[in-house]
């Protein structure tokens, strides 16, 4: 596709339910990132993938959060037993490879836990 695509764009879920957020990176981009952004705040690093491997999972807030990437392409971020503090915009980005500094971002998924 022309850019990074995230779905859904908006998600409202009840506390305690599981949610899956999807990211389709730009074709050929080997690095893929997930960030969380609360209203008026910065980008909190969650996890990144190089290919299908996740060298750094240090940003995942708890064991309720997990992510996977298959075929070096699509990635899903799963949040189990959602809590109200999980409400935020979840942003995905991709870039071509090592030492390339230009990451391309999707529009994000706005998650609201009620």
């Amino acid at each position, binding site marked *: 596709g022309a850019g990074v695509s995230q779905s859904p764009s908006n998600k409202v879920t009840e506390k305690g339910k599981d949610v899956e957020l999807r990211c389709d990176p730009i074709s050929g981009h080997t690095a893929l990132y997930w960030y969380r952004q609360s209203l008026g705040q*910065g980008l909190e*690093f969650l996890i*990144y993938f190089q290919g299908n491997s996740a060298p750094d999972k240090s940003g995942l807030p708890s064991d309720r959060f997990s992510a996977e990437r298959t075929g070096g392409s699509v990635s899903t971020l799963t949040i189990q037993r959602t809590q109200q503090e999980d409400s935020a915009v979840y*942003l995905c*980005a991709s*870039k071509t490879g090592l030492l390339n*500094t230009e*990451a*391309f971002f999707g529009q994000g998924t706005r998650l609201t836990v009620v």
Partner: protein
Amino acid sequence: GESVGLHLPTLSVQEGDNSIINCAYSNSASDYFIWYKQESGKGPQFIIDIRSNMDKRQGQRVTVLLNKTVKHLSLQIAATQPGDSAVYFCAEITGGGNKLTFGTGTQLKVEL
């Protein structure tokens, strides 16, 4: 721990003036420093980068300065325009070129 942070949360400038956005960092092992711009409702967009062994890099209307002695990064925007109104994030590349982490952000407001 490792962190990239900003001095000022909000910066207001008059249209046509120059803007300077500052950033402090603590990780001396960063490979690159980058500035991103985020407009309301959109994902961040790349502006300019600087390799950690450089002091200055210029782009179109933007200049990034890196002072490794005091671990300080700045973005200068010449002749600021209304379209420059956005949140600006400094970011760093570490981990051999793949881990990309962001600072807190500065809201730039351009007054007419």
